[in-house]
């Protein structure tokens, strides 16, 4: 370690004021502080909590790893099922994992490369430290893309999200909209054929797939045909067990309730994500799902409300997107209202929208916009309480 410390120390003067590379100081600083927590001592309070933003963000990345690993395998699994080979879950683990890696890792590398590249450029131009926020966004973006997404689209979407969604507002902590969802919404509206329909969720050459292959996700099937259709899908088996395990087509990281659930447990135990938001989104979804089902106005005929929790991206969005601390409501009461409304709006878009069945992305972005308004009223009520106390 001493060796590394000396090496960093040797290079450092070039980046400091007066050095040859002084303009690139913050690029260097980002790498240096990644390696070494700086020697900077605490003023104000003389001691500080061990937590910092690097550790916080890293915890979220760790929480996503189960979803990523499962996603990689599942991309392979769905491909082989569509090809009619190695269809059993236990068969060909390595083949499936390798195939999935070849599809998924380039997307991950593209998202991180483009995003971090832009972050470094902005940090150097604007002369501020590189913020750790993109460590999380860079992992979230691949997990919410279909496995068939062209890499250039990932690159463009990531660039759009980072520049327009974040840096234009001043960087991590200042953005109004969730960065990863900005990337997804960009592709969703700019290139809808790559983000929706029945053909994008399974990787591979569709002409080689078995006869009768449809590629529709459980969500898509249930949206069009209700519970009855869900029970009678050919090739795939969309029963509740598979929905929970996640051995179904879908975006890379969203399918497995178990993998996302492990992430949720990590985030809740460490206290990094807000349990208020997670719980209230689930409650909102169940309430809206039940009401729409009873009223008979849902497109999902006969699909019980709890099934909505395990279909599509609902759980992934709840655990990793709605809880983004920057774009969510910031007050305790605000978080509950914010989460509940995400549940309601998500279900409105899913169950009542005649165009497409997935609404979590849009519901969360909508509530991102309204989160400051919710907080405003919560804070205002505190202020009013204080004023009325004085009278």
């Amino acid at each position: 370690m001493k060796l590394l410390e000396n090496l960093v120390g040797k290079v450092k003067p070039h980046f400091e004021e007066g050095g040859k590379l002084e303009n690139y100081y913050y690029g260097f600083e980002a790498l240096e502080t990644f390696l070494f927590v700086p020697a900077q001592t605490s003023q104000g309070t003389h001691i500080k909590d061990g937590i910092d933003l690097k550790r916080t963000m890293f915890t979220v990345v760790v929480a996503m790893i189960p979803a990523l690993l499962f996603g990689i395998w599942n991309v392979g699994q769905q491909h082989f099922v569509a090809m009619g080979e190695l269809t059993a879950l236990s068969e060909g683990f390595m083949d499936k994992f390798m195939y999935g890696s070849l599809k998924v890792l380039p997307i991950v590398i593209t998202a991180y490369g483009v995003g971090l590249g832009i972050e470094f450029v902005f940090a150097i131009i604007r002369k501020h430290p590189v913020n750790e926020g993109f460590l999380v966004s860079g992992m979230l973006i691949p997990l919410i893309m279909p496995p068939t997404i062209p890499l250039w689209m990932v690159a463009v979407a990531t660039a759009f999200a980072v520049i327009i969604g974040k840096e234009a507002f001043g960087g991590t902590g200042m953005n109004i909209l969730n960065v990863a969802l900005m990337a997804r919404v960009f592709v969703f509206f700019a290139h809808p054929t790559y983000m929706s329909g029945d053909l994008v969720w399974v990787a591979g050459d569709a002409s080689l797939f078995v006869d009768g292959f449809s590629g529709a996700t459980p969500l898509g099937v249930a949206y069009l045909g209700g519970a009855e259709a869900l029970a009678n899908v050919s090739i795939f088996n969309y029963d509740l067990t598979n929905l929970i395990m996640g051995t179904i087509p879908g975006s890379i990281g969203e399918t497995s309730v178990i993998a996302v659930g492990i992430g949720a447990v990590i985030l809740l135990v460490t206290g990094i994500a807000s349990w208020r938001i997670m719980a209230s989104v689930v409650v909102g979804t169940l309430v809206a799902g039940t009401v729409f089902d009873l009223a008979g106005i849902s497109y999902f005929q006969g699909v019980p409300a709890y099934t909505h929790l395990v279909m599509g991206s609902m759980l992934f969005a709840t655990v990793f997107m709605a809880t983004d601390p920057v774009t969510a409501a910031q007050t305790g009461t605000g978080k509950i209202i914010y989460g509940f409304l995400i549940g309601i709006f998500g279900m409105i878009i899913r169950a009542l929208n005649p165009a497409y069945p997935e609404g979590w992305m849009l519901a969360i972005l909508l509530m991102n916009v309204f989160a400051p308004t919710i907080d405003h009223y919560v804070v205002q009520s505190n202020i009013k309480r204080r004023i009325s106390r004085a009278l």
Partner: protein
Amino acid sequence: MIKLSRGFDIRLLGSPEQGLLEAKNSRLFALKPTDVVGIGPIPKLHKAIGDRVLAGEPLFFDKGSPRIQFGSPVSGEVVEIRRGPKRAITEVVIAVDAEVAFHQFEKLDVASCSREQAVDLMLNSGAWTLLKQRPFNTLADPEATPRDIFVSCFDTAPLAPDHNMLIKGKESAFQKGLSVLNKLTSGGVHLGVGPESADVFTKADGVNVTSFSGPHPAGNVGVQIHHLAPINKGDVVWTLKPQDVAIIGKLFSDGVFDAERTVAVTGDKTKKTGYVKTRIGASVEPMLADNLKHDHVRCISGNALSGTQIEKDGFLGLYDDQITVLEEGDKPEFLGWLIPSYKRPSLSRTFPSFLRPNKEYHVNTNNHGEERAYVMSQQYEKVLPMDLHPQYLIKSILYGDFEQMEGLGIYEVVEEDLALCEFVCTSKQPVQQILRAGLDLVRLEG
């Protein structure tokens, strides 16, 4: 009994052992104008270098509040007047006599004297400077009558001294001081006591005693005020510490300003912790000489959260009853954000330490990260048992909105109340510094 659930006890190694520490007497004492909020940088001196002074004799006063005299805590000779940037006076240093001689003030019978007489005696002797006024934590205004006076009789800060120990031998003076305080306020005198407070506090006469329990900052007087009778706009309340109540009591019964103070020497970089009987402004040098494990330390007058950094031969602050010695944390730590090289206290459960809530930790003064924009929310609320949105308050100060600061309760807090927020902050924001800027802004321009 008021039970507070939010907060965080920072458990550190080196809490003060019961019993007195063997230490030589301090030979130098100093009064530091910098300990006092809101006075000018260059107070008007009564004494020059070489002048002799008796304990209780005025050393200087602030031109903005000429009635409040800063009395010398000891008798001796003024040997040095230390100055900081822009010639601001930072320390008025006195070499103490072998035997402290007191300036004799008139003895006042608390029951029969008038409020004006009592106020005058305190103003002239220096005892007045022990009263702090909220909002803003400034010196008490002699022209004002406080709504209430609050005394917190227990301390929950890291390595905090035990007030039962500090008050030992001063019980009757303490009780006398309380009756003086009753004279000063139009409302009541409130004592906040902890679960282990001694009878001198819990059975005090003529005051309202409320017991509090819970983690830090339950022992902070600001938190107690918030739960007993919160400060509204226009309210003025005074606060002081139990030992200072005893100093006031002694002033009235004996006519002397006896600035005796028992101080806890704490921190895991001292060889031996314990209590030292000395006076306000004592040089800490004799308490730390031969008592440090190594030299690479930070000495703090006060606690680790809101104390003031001093030199190894610096002086005890006017309001402090604790010296903390911690290791200076100015070493880089390889991947320290990921794999900490030693166990450290944290509110965050990303460290396995949350499984052992009673473990005591070694700490150093490393910042453990760099300053960032706010990302996390609701962190401050977890450690502040008040009906208040601290993060919004801090933000309102950053964008300078007076009305918002007032509405969000800036009158109810001072730096020490939000010190834990600064400790837990993931973004390492200088919360206390921001709050002080806001308090000064409201005080001077609001």
